[in-house]
C-alpha cells in the first residue's frame, strides 16, 4: 500500500465526505440515518466499514457508490463534487470511477460471462468487439478464460464472484466498492476472494472499500471505520480495533 500511495499526490484523497447527512421521509416523519459523517480515504487504501444492521452502513455505502445522494453535506470523489450531480452524471461517475462487487454477485442471468464483464465498457460507449476482447483478458487474469461463453448459473459461486470482480475491474476504476463480497461464499472460497482483493490493492494500487460485518473479512483491510447510529465511532488501523 505504501508503494502505491507514494506514487500519488499526498494531499489529494480519492474521496472526502464532509458533514454528510441522509434522512428518509415517510409521511410526516423524518428518519435520520446518517447524522454527519466526515471521512477521507486516500488513494491505494484498503478500508473496511463495519457496523450492525441499522447503523447506516448500507446507506453510507450507497452514497459512496454514487447510487444515492446525501440529504446534505459534501462528497467529492476523484476530485469532483458528486453530491449535486444529476442522475445521468452520477451514472457516468459510477461507470468510470467505481467498480462494484455485491454479496449476491449480481451477474445478469441470461448473459454469457464475457458479456457480463464487458457491459460497463458498452455503457462507456465502446463497441462490442473491443468490449469483448478486454473482457476476455480480464476473465483470463482471474483464471476464468475458458468459461467466457458460459452462463452465470453454469459456474460455482466463487467463480461467479471472480467474474463480478473482473467486471468491476474492466473499466480500470480507481475504486472498488465491495458490499459483503463473501456473504454468500464458503470459508475456503472467501479466503481466495479476499486474497484476490489484497493482491489487487497491493500490486495495482486500487483503493478497496469493503463493507462487512464479519471480523475475519475485515482483518484483510488496513483501516477500519466503524459506524453506529449514523455516526463514525471508530476510525483507525484494523490491528488496534476490537473486532
Amino acid at each position, binding site marked *: 500500500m505504501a508503494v502505491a500511495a507514494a506514487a500519488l499526490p499526498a494531499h489529494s484523497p480519492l474521496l472526502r465526505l464532509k458533514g454528510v447527512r441522509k434522512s428518509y421521509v415517510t409521511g410526516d416523519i423524518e428518519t435520520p440515518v446518517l447524522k454527519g459523517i466526515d471521512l477521507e480515504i486516500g488513494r491505494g487504501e484498503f478500508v473496511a466499514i463495519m457496523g450492525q444492521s441499522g447503523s447506516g452502513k448500507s446507506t453510507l455505502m450507497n452514497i459512496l457508490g454514487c447510487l444515492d445522494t446525501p440529504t446534505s453535506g459534501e462528497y467529492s470523489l476523484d476530485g469532483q463534487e458528486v453530491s449535486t450531480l444529476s442522475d445521468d452524471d452520477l*451514472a457516468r461517475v*459510477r461507470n468510470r470511477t467505481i467498480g*462494484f462487487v455485491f454479496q449476491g454477485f*449480481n451477474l*445478469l442471468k*441470461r448473459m454469457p460471462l464475457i458479456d457480463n464483464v464487458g457491459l460497463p465498457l458498452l455503457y*462507456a460507449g465502446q463497441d*462490442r468487439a473491443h468490449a469483448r476482447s478486454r473482457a476476455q483478458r480480464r476473465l483470463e487474469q482471474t483464471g476464468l478464460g475458458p468459461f467466457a461463453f458460459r452462463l452465470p448459473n453454469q459456474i460455482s459461486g466463487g467463480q461467479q464472484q471472480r467474474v463480478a470482480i473482473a467486471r468491476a475491474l474492466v473499466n480500470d476504476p480507481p475504486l472498488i466498492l465491495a458490499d459483503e463480497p463473501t456473504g454468500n461464499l464458503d470459508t475456503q472460497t472467501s479466503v481466495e476472494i479476499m486474497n484476490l482483493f489484497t493482491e489487487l490493492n497491493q500490486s495495482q494500487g486500487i483503493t478497496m472499500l469493503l463493507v462487512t460485518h464479519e471480523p475475519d473479512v475485515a482483518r484483510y483491510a488496513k483501516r477500519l471505520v466503524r459506524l453506529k447510529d449514523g455516526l463514525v465511532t471508530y476510525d483507525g488501523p484494523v490491528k488496534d480495533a476490537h473486532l
Partner: protein
Amino acid sequence: MNFTQISLEALRAMGMNKLRTSLTMLGIIIGVGAVVMMLAIGESVRADINQRIASMGSNLFIIFPGSQTSSGGVRVGRGGMQNLTEGDALALQNLENVDYVAPVIQRGFQVQSGFSNWNTMVYGVTPDFFAIKAWDTSSGSLFGDMEIRSISRVAVIGQSVATNLFGDFDPIGQTIRIQNRPFEVIGVLADKGSDLGGSDQDDSIYIPMSTARQQVIRQWFPGSVNYIMVQAQSARTMADVKYDLTQTLRVRHRIREDQEDDFTVRDLSAIAEAAAGIATGLTLLLGAIGSISLLVGGIGIMNIMLVSVTERTREIGIRMALGANRRDVLLQFLTEAVVICVCGGAIGVAVAYLGTLAVSNFSPLKVGMSTSGIVLAFGFAAAIGVFFGFYPAKRAAGLKPVEALRYE
C-alpha cells in the same frame, strides 16, 4: 450503447421468455395481418366496383321513353312508350359538350349456332355504343360505320354467349341465326362480369342498328328506340348537358310548359358515386376493424412490457450501477417493444399474404396486397411499439438505482 448493441440486447431479452414473447407477438401478428388483409380486400372490392362502373360508361346519361309521373291522367312508367327515336338521337348529337350519343334497340331471342341454341338479348347499336362503354373485343373486331351503312349481318357476341353457343370452339367466322337470319360472328367481347344491377353483361349479342331495325327487331313505331345513351365530355359539363338534352327533347316532342317530360333521364354518375362511396366506406370499415385488433395487440405489448420492467427491476438496478444512464435503460426497453412489433409486423404481413392467396382462390375477388398497405401496417406496428413501449420504458428509466438494486 450504440444501436446494434441495444438491438442485440433486445433480442436476448426476447429470448429469455420465448412463450411470453411469442404470445405478445401474436397480438401484433394478428393486428398487422388483419390491417393488411382488410385493406387488401377493401381495395380489391373498390377496384372491382370501379371497373364495373367504367364498363358501364362514365359521365353517362340514359334516356328512357315515358316518364315516371306523367300528367293528364295516364301514368306510364319509363320504357312504357315508344316515343324516343333515332331522330332524337341525331338531334342530341349536335349538342355542346356531348361526346357520343348511342340509340339502342333490344329484344330477347332464341339464337342458334351450328352446335347449340341460347336465349339471349340482342341489341341493335351503333359504333358509338362501344365507344361509350369503352368496350373492346378479346378476339375478332367490333363493327363500324361501314357495317351500319351496308346493313351487314355481322354480330359481336359476349363471352357467355360464346361459351353457350360454341363451347370451346373459336366463334370468329362462325354463323349464328337470329330470327332465322344468318349472322357472321366477327368479334367476341372481353369479359365484363355482371353490371352493378347484377345482370350478366356478357350474355348479349350486338348487331348493327340498321340491320337490327330492318331484319330482326321490328318496332311498332318506325324509328323508335328502347333508350338513348348520351356521354358528356366531362363530369363538370354533366349538369349543362342534362339541361340541354331535356330542353331539346321537350321541343322535339312538343311538350308544353305546363306538361311534364315524356321521357326519363337517368344519370349514371350518381349511381357510380354511390357505389364508389360504398367501396370507400367498406375499405374504411375493414381498415378500422383491423386497426382495432392492432390496438389491442399494442395494449398487450404495453401490459407485458410493464410486467417485464417489474420483473427485471433488479437487472435494471445492476445495469444502472454499472453505468447505464436513463437513456440507455429507456432505449433498451423501447427497442424491445419495437423489435417485438416489427418482427410481429413482418410475420403479420406474411400471414396476410397467405390470407389474400386463400381469398383469391376461394372467392371471385382478386385480392392483391398493396405496397402502401404493407408499408402502412409496418409503420403502424413500429409506431405502436414506440407508443405502447414508451410508458413502461419510461418507468424503467425512472427507477432509482438504490431501490432497483434492493428489489428481490
